[in-house]
């Protein structure tokens, strides 16, 4: 293409029409990975709790419940977002019958999202109901209070049912390992764009999926931590470890964004140049800064406060400020990570049709 365009070529730029997607697509691409990140948080918190050998009220239980709750809600949101985009919803709902092309990332992604959703629901139910949670305390148990308010003995029945089907420790471990693999498989959202090789902003089969995974998982962990922190203000070593993970993932995301940005800026492809102009001119430029600030804030807050909490060097005064600082930075990360996907779609430009004279 570059050689073609170096010659005196006739060119027509062709933007991908915006109605080929709508806002539901970036939301879908985002929430699917947020669900994965939140699931990983929940599963790892369960693992940490098992090391501690304490099933009673502890921070790990709260993080696990919030994590699985965010995973369920995000996966549901992703599903609804993508369904709202489709012309024939019932065919998508009947996906085992209709989605038969297993070479398509939409088919692969549908199965990943559905299985992750099911596993997240199972994990959430196991964390919310049964004898253990009945004797536990914490803001994340609010679904129990809702069921108790609804009445009809629903809560007691659910507690009995869950106690009856609760798997042994090995079963839990297997459930979380399998679920975590599906959580990581939400990297497929990046492949959905990366296969389109005529759009220079997208056609990075390593960079785009990796960026979507790291940024989405960071946002999922950050959202879970933010919710937990609203009710549990103490920043202990466990919390610090998660904050550190968010900081590292945000840093990796920022590096990937920087690499992608420089590749786009130095590309000879005319479509890449058009995308670059879009991203440096006008409203999208604001979006670029939202992304950078979001990742940077989470990187700094996560690393500084996380490292201090893990090493026990957090003074009480800093801890008082640390909670709001982490919640705020994770909020910026959540917004920035969504805006990242919006930019990927709004700045997309196909390589133009070219005819060369002879």
């Amino acid at each position, binding site marked *: 293409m570059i*050689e*073609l365009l*170096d*010659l*005196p*070529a*006739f*060119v*027509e730029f*062709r933007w*991908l*029409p915006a*109605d*080929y*997607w709508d806002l539901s697509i970036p939301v879908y691409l985002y929430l699917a990975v947020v669900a994965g990140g939140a699931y990983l948080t929940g599963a790892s918190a369960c693992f940490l709790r098992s090391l501690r050998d304490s099933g009673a009220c502890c921070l790990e239980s709260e993080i696990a419940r919030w994590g699985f709750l965010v995973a369920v809600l995000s996966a549901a949101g992703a599903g609804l977002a993508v369904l709202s*985009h*489709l*012309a*024939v919803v019932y*065919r*998508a709902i009947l996906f085992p019958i*209709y*989605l*038969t*092309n297993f*070479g*398509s*990332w*939409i*088919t692969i992604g*549908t199965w990943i999202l559905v299985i992750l959703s099911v596993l997240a629901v199972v994990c959430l139910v196991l964390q919310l109901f049964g004898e253990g949670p009945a004797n536990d305390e914490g803001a994340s148990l609010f679904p129990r209070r809702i069921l108790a308010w609804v009445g009809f003995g629903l809560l007691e029945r659910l507690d009995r049912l869950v106690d009856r089907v609760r798997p042994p420790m090995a079963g839990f471990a297997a459930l979380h390992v399998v679920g975590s693999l599906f959580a990581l498989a939400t990297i497929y959202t990046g492949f*959905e*764009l990366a*296969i*389109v090789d*005529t*759009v220079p902003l997208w056609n990075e089969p390593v960079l785009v999926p990796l960026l979507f995974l790291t940024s989405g998982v960071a946002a999922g962990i950050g959202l879970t931590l933010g919710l937990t922190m609203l009710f549990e203000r103490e920043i202990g070593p466990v919390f610090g470890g998660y904050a550190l993970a968010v900081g590292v993932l945000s840093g990796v995301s920022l590096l990937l964004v920087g690499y992608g940005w420089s590749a786009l800026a130095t590309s000879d492809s005319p479509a890449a140049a058009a995308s670059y102009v879009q991203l440096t001119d006008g409203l999208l430029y604001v979006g670029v800064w939202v992304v950078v600030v979001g990742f940077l804030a989470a990187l700094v807050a996560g690393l500084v406060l996380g490292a201090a909490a893990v090493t026990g060097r957090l003074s009480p005064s800093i801890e008082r400020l640390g909670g709001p600082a982490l919640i705020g930075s994770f909020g910026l990360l959540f917004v920035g990570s969504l805006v990242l996907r919006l930019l990927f779609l709004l700045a997309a430009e*196909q*390589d133009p*049709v*070219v*005819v*060369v*004279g*002879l």
Partner: protein
Amino acid sequence: MGEQWMFYFDPNRCIGCDACSIACKQRHDRDATADDWRTVSHLKRGEYPDFEDVPISMSCMHCHDAPCEEVCPPDAILKRDEDGIVTVDRDRCIGCHYCAWACPYGAPTYGDDGLMSKCNMCLGEGPGGGHGQPPKQKAEDGGAKPSCVDNCVGEAIKAGPQSEVMDEASEAAARRFENGAYGSRVIVEPIAEDAEAAEAIRSGEDDRADAWLNG
């Protein structure tokens, strides 16, 4: 497996009259405001006052590798073995628009129902009309000539089995096609009047010529 049917386009003969896109709509009884299955774009070169444009008529190219078929989740898009024409089964389409993302030519269009429709080389009529039709026949064998080809006043568009279209193409166009230009999806004649570039290429002054000729 039958021979691949394909389009041929000669920008030197196109006058940009849009007869092809209008004839396409009429043949397929499509609304005047519906997205075109065949579009006439104006490719531009240079800046005023040294400005030129050239009309280009494009539709689904029925690509040999059909990227739309590869990504279609419900297998609604089919690259037919018998004639290579790419058809869509609208009874399976979910309207996800993924084919539009993958298509290098922007061929898939979407109506009010949100379902995909595109050129079927007049294998059948109307959206989805090509699905399940018998193999494409040449006009002399009783088959329907694609409406765009039939109505092109300058004979800029041709369609047929690959070997026949190649026979009608110029040596340069055929060579470029064989060497992979445009992904070997369509045969396009080079623009003849660009004397400066032509001379640079012929004289060997321009060492990018090989890259261009080889696609």
